[in-house]
């Protein structure tokens, strides 16, 4: 349903951040983009959601299509109306509004009426029962896990056709990360909303995802079904931190990966 074709993104007319990124999200899938800091994961999401424009970024080549319509070079507000909702990195919320008001914003922005808002609130509270207990609290004072639930819930309130999640695991305790990803998986399975997930926590992302892309310095260097990628030696080594126990590492192995990367990229 979403297709990114060979896009190139330049910030402030000089900095080339994405050099030909292509990816695809199919109906009902969870697709993840893995990669280190500065690889261009967030930029890819912002290119899709249109937020790039407000940060002096520009798509200079390639195209982005939702179904049959081209959506690159459209302002962020329009893209939200098409049903692509980005949940920003770092659990950003309207800190002085209550939990319920924060959730309502997601729906208000798409022009939903009060009845629809009430229905959607019920649904969000079903996925995140904790939010119902605290729905009158000022959201700035919530714990990190609650805030993450809140921002994902706010995304759901917009009745998305596609959700873009930017590092939902960032700065959360391992147990909470489990909870959040379980909820993400449940949302995807029950409501069929496709999710494009950017993560540094490769292990858990590969567990829930159907398909995965690995980015490095503005390029996709590797992609494949998530379960296969989880078995890939390079991924194990560089993203999952697994090495054969007791075996000595030689520089040649590292070089092998670099060569591979150059070839793939």
């Amino acid at each position: 349903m979403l297709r990114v074709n060979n896009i190139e993104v330049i910030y402030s007319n000089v900095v080339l951040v994405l050099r030909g990124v292509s990816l695809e999200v199919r109906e009902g899938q969870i697709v993840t983009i893995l990669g280190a800091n500065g690889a261009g994961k967030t930029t890819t999401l912002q290119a899709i959601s249109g937020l790039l424009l407000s940060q002096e970024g520009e798509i200079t080549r390639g195209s982005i299509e939702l179904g049959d319509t081209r959506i690159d070079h459209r302002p962020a507000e329009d893209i939200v109306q098409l049903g692509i909702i980005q949940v920003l990195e770092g659990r950003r919320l309207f800190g002085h509004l209550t939990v319920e008001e924060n959730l309502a914003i997601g729906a208000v922005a798409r022009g939903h009426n009060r009845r629809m808002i009430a229905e959607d609130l019920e649904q969000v509270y079903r996925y995140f029962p904790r939010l119902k207990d605290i729905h009158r609290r000022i959201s700035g004072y919530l714990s990190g896990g609650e805030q993450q639930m809140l921002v994902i819930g706010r995304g759901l309130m917009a009745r998305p056709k596609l959700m873009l999640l930017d590092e939902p695991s960032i700065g959360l305790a391992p147990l909470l990360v489990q909870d959040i990803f379980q909820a993400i998986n449940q949302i995807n399975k029950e409501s069929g909303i496709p999710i494009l997930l950017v993560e540094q926590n490769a292990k858990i992302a590969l567990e829930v995802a159907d398909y995965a892309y690995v980015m490095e310095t503005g390029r996709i260097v590797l992609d494949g079904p998530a379960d296969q990628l989880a078995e890939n030696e390079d991924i194990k080594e560089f993203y999952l931190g697994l090495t054969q126990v007791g075996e000595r590492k030689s520089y040649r192995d590292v070089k092998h990966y670099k060569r591979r990367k150059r070839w793939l990229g």
Partner: protein
Amino acid sequence: MNWQLLPQFALTGILAGGPIALIALGLVLIFKSSYIFNFAQGQLLLLGALFTWYFSIELELNLWLSIFLAVAVMALIGFAIERFALRPMTGQPLLSIILMTLGLSQALQGLALLVFGGAQRNFPQIFSAGDPYKITTPLVHEGNNIILILKQNLVWSFVVAVIGVIIIGGFFQYTRTGLAMRATSEDHELAQSTGLRIRRIFGISWGLAGVVATVGGVLLATSSGLDLSLSLVVLAAFPAVLLGGLDSIPGTVAGGLLIGLSQGLVKVSKVPIVRNSAEIMPYVVLMIVLLIRPEGLFGQKRIERI
């Protein structure tokens, strides 16, 4: 101090603070959504009053219809200011945008002088000019009960201002547009990412500011007459908003009433210099409050999680 005058001036001061609070609220509306401090609010107020005068006296329309038309025209002018003066400045430093409103204030003032002329005008009486209300208090001074004398104008202006404040407060708290405005005021980028059309929201807040300014202008003009110096009333409203913390509606109301009260109280003094200092009192109060509470009386403190 003329203690026997204290209740009278305290009460008239607070009542006069009502319209100040309403005018200050116009500033809050814009600041809340876009972080712009609108120096042209006084001129919006003046124009609102002038239009009302024009429709009712020059065109001899019904007074209420005139007010309604003036409100509509001013809402449009508010929209237009946002659309043609401020939107092109999006992305510029905030200071340039604020200076733009300062420029606008001068331009609008000049325009008002060109179009309407600088003469003092008779403004139609909205509230009956009948006998003032008299309240006999249980306080006794030299054997007689102190009687408070309140002009009808003053009382009803206060009532209208309070109703206006309640309507705006309710709009912010309970409508979807109000919610969207509150969200936008917190984080423009985040608001945009959730799909809120923040430019439309800026437009709405400027339109509303025009409406509020008109109502405030009409209230003031009907009690003190209309000439171009009406725009200077905002000099009392600026400290009221700052006192309230710039983004708080209850704070602004408290600020407006406090300013009114301070202006009333100095008149109780027997020292001529103090008695005539009503115009600078708002700023004296402002300085004292800001020294103690820099975020204003009710301003939002940044929420920091620890």
